[in-house]
């Protein structure tokens, strides 16, 4: 893994696009175009007053183009980080306190995600009015509904329950 600080590489243009945060989380190395899905999967829409900055299609060494999301004043939980892996498998999570990165880790794919995705199968019991939380097991190349067993490989982001 390269020490890929390409958004802090001294190039002022990049610095301007995504400003530094004081305390919070920087989600880096999100595949280009997925930043808004990252926010959706985390349930962040700015309605709680969080300060969020998003950089999209920023040049990157590791990914040709990447997105980057910075959330001021919020440290992501492990559960949230795990869920992120479904749409941003290469993401790095930087926890920032007082402008310093105090923790840096890669996302890991969980075995199961609950209450995050909604099942695309109209015949699935979870799509009705039942008091049931959606549950998907995470496969190597997709996710699978624990109720109707439908497998989704592409467009997982489209299932994000917002």
């Amino acid at each position, binding site marked *: 893994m390269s020490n890929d600080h390409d958004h802090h590489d001294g190039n002022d243009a990049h610095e301007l696009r995504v400003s530094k945060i004081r305390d919070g989380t920087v989600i880096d190395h999100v595949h280009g175009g997925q930043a808004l899905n990252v926010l959706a999967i985390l349930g962040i829409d700015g309605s709680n007053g969080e300060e969020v900055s998003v950089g999209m299609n920023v040049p990157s060494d590791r990914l040709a183009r990447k997105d980057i999301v910075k959330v001021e004043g919020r440290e992501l939980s492990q559960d949230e980080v795990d869920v992120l892996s479904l749409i941003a498998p290469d993401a790095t999570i930087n926890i920032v306190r007082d402008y310093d990165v105090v923790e840096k880790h890669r996302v890991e794919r969980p075995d199961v995600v609950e209450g995050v995705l909604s099942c695309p*199968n109209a*015949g*699935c*019991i*979870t799509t*009705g*009015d*039942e*008091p*049931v939380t959606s549950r998907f097991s995470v496969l190597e190349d997709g996710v*699978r*509904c*624990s*109720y*109707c*067993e*439908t*497998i989704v490989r592409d467009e997982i982001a489209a299932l994000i329950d917002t």
Partner: protein
Amino acid sequence: MRHDHLITSKQLSRGDIETVLDYAAEIDDDPSAVADRHAGTLLGLLFFEPSTRTKMSFETAMKRLGGDVVDMGSVESSSVTKGETLADTVRVIEGYTDALVLRHPKQGAATMASEFVDVPLVNAGDGAGHHPTQTMLDLYTIRENAGLDDLTIGIMGDLKYGRTVHSLAYALTNFDTRQHFISPESLQLPREVVYDLHQRQDGTGIKEHDSLEDVLPSLDVLYVTRIQRERFPDENEYQKVAGEYQIDGDTLEAASDDLTVMHPLPRVDEIAPEIDETDHAAYFEQAHNGVPVRMALLDLLLSDDKGIGGGTDE
């Protein structure tokens, strides 16, 4: 492992299946031995989709064990039409009964319902999902007629929507079987099912075909299912494929004399009546086997000392 609910055939090991089939055979030999085993026991029948035969089969099984059934009646006359959730319905009926049998049009309904109840719940069909008790009686019939090991089986017809087919195919991966799936292209097994079957078996035992001809001579069992007209947007399309998946005396000329022909019934015209009187026909026997098999399953689920697989594992 002990199961409190029977939701899918996937949950059953070879040991579980053998426990049920052996016990069903015992009951079949001497039903009177279990006639009072569950006196006073009430089974709740929750059929959100009509299925007179499956319901009657469960009802007969429970009564032959000395118990009784309560039935929520038709969906039209029940509180379901008032918008009650399935989760609420099962929690209410659970209070009246010792076990529940659920048939529901939505996939995953039995899995969800089982999360809300403590009494044993048996899935009697959840949409295009699973129908494990049908699988058990299919396996029982196959074992009686052809044995379950070193078995070559052809499964033909609507493989896409046929939950009985999916359940059976999963269960058969526990045994030494070669499975040939024969269907029109538009009604092939769902890719999910193929994926699972390959996960469960190395894949060499699973083959798909669009014609019966090539595989028929090698089969010990031919399991036929109905191709439904309503699956086809266009009547012509239906007519084109339907005939190819019907069998009659001429078709079976090429088959082994020992071929067993099965069908979950009801049939329409997939199997010509002339087959009924031959040694090939096992479909009525298959339907009758539903009672001893469901008696065995219900007894295993309802007995504290048994349970499916209970006592067979250390």
